[in-house]
């Protein structure tokens, strides 16, 4: 017998032992009954063992590093809160970006957790099962840490407390809800391509990297630490998404057209989801780090091109929407801000006209479009507000049946005209914001005819309290919407004159004087 200490296992050996070697094929029941969902989408898999996590992360290491991330995160959050960190942000307007971002994202993280929990159950190979389990726990962690981060702000600022109720009801949250509902009700491989690849790999860099760096630039240590802590998991998620694509394409040539359709669909759905992020970067961060257009160029065009050039060897083509997004990067943030500014009475965050220096910054960053199309409107609104006529659009919106955004984007070749597309299915008309949303609908109309469009629900009478005659000729659904949404009136309207504005000024004065 030798007495030498056992050799430390290499990363590869440990990964093999603790993932694949712990799995087994069933014998009492056929594998197809144990994993019933992996066949019906038409994807063909021949050898599940070909899927390996390139991080080679095992559960023991996962817990160790995630625990360290959590300790760091909560130490920073405690310090930020104990030090009245909310008063160190650049300007109280900044808080509104948190209301939108942290009011819309946690429920979506929860949906991602549910989706990846199901993936962990459905994937036949041990490699993807373990990776999906880790991602499910990550997403649950993001859901919790975002709520913990915003809870301190909720003690001081209006409009943060009803995000869970509003998630399934509020008009401007329905695009995100629809995105995840669509993904989670698809089959397991489409979900992986939707969230793992299109969203995590191709698009979340836009959301987390420049935007969270922007939060840091604006003095928000809490959002920065939550965002970066989440993003440290995203690198793993992106890798899972990319491995999934390579695995599907290497397994069988018949998978290519299915995967291509999913990439086309989900790159576009993700692009539409990020319209509001553009507005957050260009309009809502008082100190700006880069324009949405610049972020799009670095993280979508350059990084996406690298990715799609690489995938070309499998026959994958650049998503059909790619060229349209390149044209739209000059417009989407402005069109989003215009859409939100005018509905300030039906939202739980404030909007405003940017100051003169901010308008100049936008002119400089968007030389092809801002002065020509957008600056005149913002300056007109500013003038009207100073005359006591702050613009409010009291009408109810028209929404895209697929992405659920209001129909507000322009014809790709004409920035002055709104883009309308429509289809007829079973004798009923359906409207879309773009060719790409129409194509998604036309492929699976049975799915999208179920869309929850807030304004239509109101007009059907589904948002009025009991006792109201919703069939009456003069039934006015708008009267009941803010109660239906549990909208705090203090959180609505322009930033100028808001409680947040007054309180922040008073508290900061207290913090800097005796």
């Amino acid at each position: 017998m030798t007495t030498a200490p056992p050799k430390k296992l290499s990363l590869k050996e440990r990964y093999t032992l603790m993932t694949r070697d712990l799995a087994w094929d069933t014998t009492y029941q056929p594998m197809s009954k144990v994993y019933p969902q992996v066949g019906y989408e038409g994807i063909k898999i021949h050898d599940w063992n070909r899927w390996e996590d390139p991080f080679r992360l095992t559960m023991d290491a996962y817990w160790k590093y995630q625990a360290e991330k959590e300790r760091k995160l909560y130490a920073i959050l405690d310090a930020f809160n104990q030090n009245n960190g909310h008063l160190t942000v650049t300007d109280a307007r900044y808080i509104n970006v948190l209301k939108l971002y942290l009011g819309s994202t946690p429920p979506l993280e929860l949906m991602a957790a549910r989706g990846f929990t199901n993936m962990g159950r459905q994937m036949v190979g041990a490699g993807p099962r373990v990776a999906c389990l880790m991602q499910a726990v990550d997403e649950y962690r993001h859901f919790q840490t975002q709520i913990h981060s915003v809870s301190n702000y909720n003690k001081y600022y209006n409009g943060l407390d009803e995000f869970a109720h509003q998630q399934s009801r509020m008009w401007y949250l329905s695009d995100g809800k629809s995105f995840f509902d669509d993904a989670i009700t698809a089959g397991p491989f489409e979900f992986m391509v939707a969230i793992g690849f299109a969203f995590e790999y191709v698009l979340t860099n836009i959301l987390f990297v420049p935007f969270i760096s922007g939060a840091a630039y604006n003095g928000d240590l809490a959002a920065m630490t939550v965002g970066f802590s989440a993003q440290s998991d995203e690198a793993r998620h992106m890798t899972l998404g990319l491995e999934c694509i390579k695995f599907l394409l290497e397994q069988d040539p018949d998978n290519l057209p299915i995967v291509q359709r999913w990439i086309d669909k989900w790159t576009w759905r993700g692009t539409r989801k990020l319209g509001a992020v553009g507005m957050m970067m260009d309009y809502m961060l008082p100190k700006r780090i880069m324009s949405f257009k610049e972020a799009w160029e670095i993280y979508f065009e350059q990084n996406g091109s690298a990715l799609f050039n690489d995938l070309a060897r499998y026959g994958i083509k650049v998503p059909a929407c790619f060229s349209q997004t390149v044209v739209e990067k000059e417009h989407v943030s402005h069109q989003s801000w215009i859409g939100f500014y005018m509905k300030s009475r039906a939202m739980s965050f404030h909007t405003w006209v940017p100051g003169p220096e901010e308008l100049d910054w936008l002119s400089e960053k968007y030389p092809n479009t801002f002065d020509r199309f957008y600056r005149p409107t913002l300056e007109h609104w500013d003038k009207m507000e100073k005359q006591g006529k702050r613009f409010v659009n009291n009408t109810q919106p028209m929404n895209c049946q697929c992405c659920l955004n209001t129909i507000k984007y322009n014809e790709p070749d004409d920035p002055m005209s709104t883009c309308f597309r429509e289809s007829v299915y079973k004798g009923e008309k359906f409207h879309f914001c773009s060719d790409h949303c129409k194509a998604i609908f036309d492929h699976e109309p049975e799915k999208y005819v179920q869309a929850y469009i807030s304004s239509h629900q109101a007009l059907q009478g589904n948002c009025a309290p009991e006792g109201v005659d919703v069939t009456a000729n003069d039934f006015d659904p708008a009267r009941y919407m803010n109660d239906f949404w549990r909208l705090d009136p203090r959180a609505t309207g322009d930033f100028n004159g808001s409680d947040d504005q007054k309180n922040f000024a008073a508290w900061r004065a207290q913090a800097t004087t005796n």
Partner: protein
Amino acid sequence: MSSNTFIAFQKNEDTRCIVEAIVDDNPGAVVVDQPAMVKVDVPGRMVIKRTTVEEKLGREFDLQELQVHLITISGHLDETDDEFCLSWEQ
């Protein structure tokens, strides 16, 4: 021309050393400083070597510790005990 691989970290004392190690081991590395984060671009292929990071840090380093500081990556990944490699060259 090959595409850029990149990696971004939260800015702290550990990642200052990690970035120095990347710059030493990858000719052509471009470091981009941004608020609270640092991004490194390398054309084609980037390698992070455990031994170089250990030299810079002056202590033992497990490449899986990168998990704690990571923000984002671009490229195909291959991680072993000694190297963390991102690449667009297959």
